[in-house]
């Protein structure tokens, strides 16, 4: 109690100071090295949503791969070179014209790092974590994705060790594109399920009752 009072009287160290102090203390004590830290940081920078986008593009163009991905996404992603921490058990969720999938981690901020990358700020925000399980349709609308009331929304809560990725619908008008060009249509937001795969030119949404609207 007295200790707590003294602590309150002192000023708080900034987050930059706290990170630097922790790093120095661990390196000085010989617990870890700068090389260890560099290794993990650059690993994180290799986990990119572009990886997941390539997985999606292949699933759109290769029916056998799509079948393997839906059956065992962990192996299908690994065969493209995407594996590692937070990718030990991946499940792919395929959107259909009448069912849309969206991912959240309400209790912390888990994502499938090897294919989605570290989570973006909005995914980690208390607002997204609190709201999307309860009012997904409203949240998606605010984020620019209008789903028809006929489309059922499945919200996947990352509460245990399964890590999810969404396979968005292949946009209309993208029939002639090759796998690389298709991958460019798939954003991190589409892999989480708060956006559609972007159409190559102007969108023609009427056929599936789904429109993407930004404001």
């Amino acid at each position, binding site marked *: 109690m007295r200790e707590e009072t003294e*602590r309150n009287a*002192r*000023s*708080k*160290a*900034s*987050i*930059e*100071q*706290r*990170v*630097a*102090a*922790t*790093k*120095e*203390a*661990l390196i000085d*004590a010989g617990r*870890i090295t700068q090389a*260890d*830290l560099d290794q*993990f*940081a650059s*690993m994180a*920078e290799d*986990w*990119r949503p572009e990886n997941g986008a390539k997985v999606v593009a292949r699933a759109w163009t290769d029916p056998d791969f799509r079948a393997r991905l839906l059956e065992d996404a962990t192996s299908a992603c690994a065969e493209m070179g995407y594996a590692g921490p937070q990718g030990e*058990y991946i*499940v792919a969720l395929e959107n259909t014209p009448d069912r849309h999938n969206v991912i959240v981690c*309400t*209790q*912390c901020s888990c994502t499938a790092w090897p294919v989605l*990358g*570290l*989570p*973006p*700020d*909005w995914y*980690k*925000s*208390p*607002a*997204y*974590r*609190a709201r999307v*399980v*309860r009012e*997904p349709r409203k949240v998606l609308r605010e*984020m620019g994705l209008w789903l028809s*009331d006929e489309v*059922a*929304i*499945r*919200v*996947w*809560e990352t*509460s*245990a*060790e399964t890590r999810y990725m969404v396979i968005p619908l292949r946009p209309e008008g993208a029939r002639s594109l090759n796998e690389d060009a298709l991958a460019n249509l798939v954003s991190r937001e589409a892999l989480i399920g708060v956006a559609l795969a972007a159409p190559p030119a102007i969108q023609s949404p009427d056929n599936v009752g789904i429109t993407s609207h930004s404001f």
Partner: protein
Amino acid sequence: MDGIHDLGGTQGFGHIDVEADEPVFHHPWQRTSFALMMATQIILRSHNADEYRHAIERMDPAHYLLCDYYERVLTGTVSLLVEKGYLSREDVERRAGGVFELAGPVSDRPLADLTPQPEARFNLGDRVRVLNISPSGHIRAPKFCRGHEGTVIHRAPKFRFPDTSAHDGERRKEHTYHVEFKSKDLWSDRDAANDSVIVDLWDSYLEFAL
């Protein structure tokens, strides 16, 4: 633990802002914070991921809500390093030049009274109910689904049981299940008949619905 971290369904939060072309890290300290979290768990092996998640859950609620994700990452990590004697609070505060806010203590009775389930008890299509328990320690069944009934739609492999793993308990593994709950069963203010929430739940969180 019925903590602030268990946010699913909590109302009163505002708009969600999406940053276009967001970088992996916005600031160099976030990159270091992430690397420290990984290095302490994987190289130093000072603690496991369940202890780490629970340390973040033990943060002061207002601090938790307001701070950046990578500040939570650092706070959880350093709290465990101090608790386990790898670092002293005095040393890191001296080095940081000020107060280093850490997580609160673990409850003195963190474990729920849950029976280990070595074999899978549930099959696809089974109707299950999540136990309506409220242990003071780590638990990964979100509050919003406790006491509610859903349907098993997938069985995942066995994974370490977080409630005991976070508290130096038995290192058992159990299957988890993807359990689908109708949104309107979870929240009475919802009427979207088709919408559902799927939660990934360990075997011993569940019982057969009657």
